[in-house]
């Protein structure tokens, strides 16, 4: 075990909790609550500064200044936006299904938060070391589809309805290549516990034997995140804001926080599955994890501001006629190569 201050911190906090006279079953509860609170704080920071990073990078790519007035280099812009959203009026459009309209942000945000529970930030630094972690992530992420459908349907707006319908078609179609591309990694690692998958990459990162899988994973993940070139759910220039057209103020802010939490989660998943997780020379493991994850996030932002949007028929064709057969081919190739080299 490497000397990692995150682990010492965890052990230290645990000792304090024990010394307070909290007996054994409750120590775990307290530790989990503390972990959840810390992750929630990190999630908030990622959401706020993800937006800031996205706007700055967009400015850089489009040869203009991003936000640069509030605070040094515009660093406080995110805080100002947060305060603005909290103080804006809470609007629900006429004729909307009010209960479903109010419920939708919960259904979108809660899964985003729940996925963070199983992300392995470093060895032993994971809130819940679930033995079926990967399956759990896939299951939980797809719940957000329901939230988008609820948001679009309840808004009583035709743009929203179109956005909602598209979101379902798109997320269903791209979930298959996503799941199949992960199977190659599972075959090599022999486990769906995320920490065990990282451990299996001590010698070689899975991006090398699973390069095709990695490409399919990134494309499908971009579609699952509803980001350009697959942002048909929002499609600003044709659907105003798609499923979110009628949302404003903090409810809209929660959708945005969920979006950036999901980008981070998917980047972390790509890091864990293909880029060797926390493995890396010299620097501490958690630093490597964050470097890789931030690189992936930058990649997603870069893609968004570089590519034009696809049409819905092109989008569905890409998934069903190209990515799905390719991802199944990837499983067969992985299996064949395995028996060719190891038997």
């Amino acid at each position: 075990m490497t000397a990692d201050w995150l682990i010492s911190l965890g052990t230290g906090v645990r000792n304090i909790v024990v010394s307070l006279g909290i007996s054994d079953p409750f120590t775990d509860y307290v530790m989990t609550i503390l972990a959840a609170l810390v992750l929630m704080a990190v999630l908030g920071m990622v959401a706020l500064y993800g937006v800031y990073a996205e706007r700055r990078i967009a400015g850089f790519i489009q040869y203009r200044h991003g936000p640069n007035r509030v605070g040094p280099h515009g660093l406080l812009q995110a805080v100002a936006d947060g305060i603005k959203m909290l103080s804006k009026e809470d609007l629900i459009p006429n004729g909307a299904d009010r209960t479903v309209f109010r419920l939708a942000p919960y259904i979108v945000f809660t899964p985003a938060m729940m996925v963070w529970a199983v992300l392995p930030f470093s060895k032993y630094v994971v809130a819940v070391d679930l033995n079926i972690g990967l399956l759990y992530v896939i299951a939980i992420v797809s719940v957000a589809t329901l939230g988008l459908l609820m948001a679009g349907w309840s808004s009583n707006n035709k743009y929203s309805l179109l956005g909602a319908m598209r979101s379902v078609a798109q997320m269903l179609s791209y979930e298959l290549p996503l799941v199949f591309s992960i199977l190659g990694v599972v075959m090599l690692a022999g486990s769906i516990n995320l920490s065990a998958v990282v451990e299996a990459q001590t010698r070689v990162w899975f991006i090398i034997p699973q390069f095709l899988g990695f490409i399919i994973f990134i494309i499908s993940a971009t579609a699952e995140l509803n980001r350009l070139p697959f942002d048909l759910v929002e499609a600003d220039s044709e659907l105003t804001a798609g499923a979110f057209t009628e949302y404003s103020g903090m409810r809209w802010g929660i959708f945005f926080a969920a979006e950036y939490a999901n980008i981070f989660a998917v980047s972390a998943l790509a890091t864990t599955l293909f880029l060797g997780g926390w493995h890396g020379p010299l620097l501490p493991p958690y630093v490597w994890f964050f470097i890789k994850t931030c690189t992936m996030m930058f990649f997603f932002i870069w893609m968004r501001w570089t590519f034009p949007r696809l049409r819905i028929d092109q989008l569905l064709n890409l998934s069903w006629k190209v990515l799905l057969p390719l991802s199944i081919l990837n499983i067969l190739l992985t299996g064949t190569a395995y028996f060719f080299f190891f038997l």
Partner: protein
Amino acid sequence: MSDFTKIAFFMFFGIAFVFGSMLVVRLLSTSKYDPIKSLPYECGMDTIGPTWIQFQNNYFMYALLFLVFDVETVFLFPWAIRFSQLGLMAFIEMVLFVAMLLLALWYAWKEGVLEWS
């Protein structure tokens, strides 16, 4: 304590975060009803006709096809975890299983389910 009890904590905190921020909004924001302000947004025009109508059935076909392949993953995951121990025979059997489903995909393709009209 089971892992899923811990997961339940995370679920609770996710809900609490949204609930808490909506509570802060209720405390901070002003609220004034206005019939014009709360019209659905449709580029300056009033909404024409009802919004909740029957919709294109293309979406439904994709959903059906999705269901077939999603059930397939349920069989593929346990096999993939034990892949190296199960050996060559299990691999060949899985190839046959996947080939049958690919046949289904090919049939759907041929029948034009995958064409957007």
